[in-house]
């Protein structure tokens, strides 16, 4: 996950919960493609059709609050989003994203100063996040070392295989 992502912004508000990201009535499948058809339905039902692969989802505080459903980061990724930038993340959504390999970037001020459709360039493991459209730059923090280890392993399952030596 050391690559840089560049894409158009889809901007959402604060406290975007998992019922908005993927309503529970669709959780009768685990197929990412089917889930993606309903991604962000609570706010923007046409989301999947509107997204160009590589686009960036930008949200305010507490993104992904609510349920532990991993279907949430799974459907965001399947909808074509390359990474999620938010002022802050709800903790279960954050760890689910790390575990499945959806890049998530916590960054202050970006949400306030970015508009829908701006182009962002982001590096998920700390460094500089750029708003190309507005020529602004933001510093973002690196993940804790342990989280970096999971990411560099290729997700939690790979980390488990490599490190824990399962039977």
């Amino acid at each position, binding site marked *: 996950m050391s690559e840089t992502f560049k894409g158009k912004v889809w901007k959402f508000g604060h406290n975007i919960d998992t019922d908005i990201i993927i309503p529970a009535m669709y959780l009768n499948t*685990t197929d990412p493609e089917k889930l993606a058809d309903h991604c962000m339905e609570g706010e923007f039902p046409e989301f999947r059709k509107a997204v160009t692969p590589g686009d960036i989802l930008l949200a305010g505080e507490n993104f992904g609050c609510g349920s532990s459903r991993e279907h949430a980061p799974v459907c965001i990724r399947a909808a074509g989003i390359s990474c999620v930038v938010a002022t802050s993340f709800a903790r279960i959504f954050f760890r689910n994203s790390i575990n499945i390999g959806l890049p998530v970037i916590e960054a202050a001020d970006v949400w306030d100063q970015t508009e829908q459709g701006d182009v962002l360039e982001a590096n998920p493991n700390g460094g500089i996040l750029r708003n190309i459209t507005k020529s602004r730059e933001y510093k973002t923090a690196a993940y804790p070392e342990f989280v970096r280890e999971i990411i560099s392993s290729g997700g939690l399952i790979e980390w488990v295989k490599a490190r824990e030596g399962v*039977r």
Partner: protein
Amino acid sequence: MGMTMTEKILAASSGRESVRPGEIVLAECDLMMGHDVTAPPAINEFRKTGAAKVKDPDRIALVNDHFVPNKDIMSAALAKAMREFAREQGIKKYFEVGRSGVCHALLPEEGLVSPGDVVIGADSHTCTHGAMGAFATGVGSTDLAAAWATGKIWLKTPETMAFDISGAPSKWAFGKDVILKIIGMIGVDGARYRAMEFRGPGVAAMSIYDRLTMANMAIEAGAKNGIFEADEKTAEYLAGTPARKGKIYASDADAVFADVVKVDIEGMEPVVACPSLPENVKAVGELKGVKIDQSFVGSCTNGWLPDLRLAASVIKGKKVHPEVRMIVIPATQRIYRAAMAEGLLDIFAEAGAAVSAPTCGPCLGGHMGVLAEGEVAVSTTNRNFIGRMGHVKSLVYLSNPAVAAASAVAGEIVHPEEIM
């Protein structure tokens, strides 16, 4: 420097003398729970580890609760995948429809949670089990799969916020009202990444069920876990189950808290969380004239036997308003049978309410009471997010069971005293 309860449990479960907030530990899990929605993706991930067998089938619980009895063919396929996995792996704590219940009501009832335990569940309301003096937190399916393979979970030690609760609420306010009040005070991310430790004389006086309701909603303030020190009430509850005695942890006098919040509940009246966030809390009296289409009593928040007794005491001898549907769902099969034996189910049926077998169903807009566009519900559940119980243009008000029952009779949100 002392430690909080949460820090002590995480230290002990990871073989350390001590831990500090921010430190990442690999904790040994005492219980690893999945249900019919989250276990199937966990099974898929577990296969990818290459492990043939789970580390310890006796520490795994698999619960049919979300879309059961199965609402459609797809959900039946999910339940089937979980059932087959349980058989294949020799998981005895597999709970089939008719012998199951909403997971967070079921696990304590089955004696599967003891003080000092580390409990993880692929369900965000796993924090409920902190009411037993355990560390309990919700995780995703991949985390659960990794834990099945290794018996361990990686956890960042949270900072702890203490909530000093004093006073006694009015006759019509309960644990539900207290936790809604707290979420109203600190907001839906007020305890994000933190432990919420509930303590003080207000807590000591509370029943174990009120504590379970409060711990259940810690996640609605963004918390990693909610926790209560186990006391004689916990011991009394556990004695009625096959639970291990466990180990009681208390926070040290010199433990470091990120914040200490004083919560005075003396004389408190019922409150309601208005759409569409649990932090939009108002006194029930402020909602006069809010008409409802549906009232739901049930869920892992308020589907316990005392909740049903309370709702029944309010509705007994009255009728559900002609323009309202009332749905009552005992949280587990055991609660269902006890409510039947006590005559509670008949009181609801006589009043014109629909009573169903245990399921999470309506709480998450799954089945058994989904809302149409423009409809309004008062519900004893834990979330009122946009679209939570059905259509994105339906609205949910969260309340205690007495308010939900009284509102079913009145046809609008009312204080229970108004119909008594």
